[in-house]
């Protein structure tokens, strides 16, 4: 990684964070209002997603056209994950949704809230890292047992 990449990583994080702050997504109440479909529903989060996806999708299209003309340009390698919908994906997303619906925090906003010094955000972030580690540890366990019981478990490592 060169200095330019370091700067862009930091800048991208900062722009991301400012976007979350401006749009009000760092306030759990706004997030919960979006999820409160039978109560006082707020479309704000949908607006944020719309804005983000519109810009990013447009940019990706533009970049893809450029790459088609110049195939040597950077083709990042970390998107080649198999496009399979599996149980882990659905179960994981379902569990995440419950935590999200309880707290109104997802990973990005909780880290921004940590920076803003919102009380308790540090507890949430620490617990979140713990949950991630727990998942990695469990997956390590099942991977070893899967290897022992049946060698054909190609997606356990995914």
């Amino acid at each position, binding site marked *: 990684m060169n200095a330019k990449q*370091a700067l862009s990583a*930091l800048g991208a994080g900062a722009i991301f964070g400012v976007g979350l702050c401006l749009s009000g997504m*760092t306030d759990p109440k706004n997030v919960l209002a979006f999820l409160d479909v039978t109560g006082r529903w707020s479309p704000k989060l949908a607006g944020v997603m719309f804005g*983000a996806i519109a810009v990013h999708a447009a940019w990706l299209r533009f970049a893809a056209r450029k790459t088609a003309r110049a195939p040597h340009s950077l083709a990042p390698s*970390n998107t080649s994950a198999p496009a399979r919908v599996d149980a882990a994906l659905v179960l994981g997303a379902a569990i995440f949704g419950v935590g999200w619906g309880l707290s109104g*925090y997802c990973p*990005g906003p909780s880290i*921004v809230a940590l920076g803003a010094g919102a009380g*308790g955000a540090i507890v*949430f972030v620490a617990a979140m890292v713990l949950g991630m580690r727990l998942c990695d540890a469990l997956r390590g366990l099942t991977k070893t047992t899967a290897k022992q019981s049946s060698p054909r478990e190609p997606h356990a490592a995914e």
Partner: protein
Amino acid sequence: VSLAILGGALIGLSASLFWSQNGRVAGVSGLLAGLFQSGSKARFERALFLLGLVIAGLLFGKFSHRIAAPVLPLAPLAFAGVLVGFGTRLGGGCTSGHGVCGLSRFSLRSLTAVCTFIATGALTVFVVRAFSLWSAR
């Protein structure tokens, strides 16, 4: 709502910048998890992105009074945090990775994930409201 779309556009811009310059998906849960995983690639880059998030929060907290507090007491907040961490890890992404980046590239996996976590999130809010376990509003 216009501020929401503007903020969203900034997030989209950030994801594009990170993708083009660093070749990475701006998925916060994945970046965070990788930070604490031994032998993961580009730890420094991950740390810088996350530091950017923290700095944005710091600045915003300083110059605006929009510092939101968590709506839960600490113990349930920690419980929710564990669920979010575990779930995003198992599901391979969160609102940024699956939501913004994944949907932008029309990924079926991401669409499935987004529909699932919005559904269980909405259900959770509904159940919590129904039992009025907390009265944040």
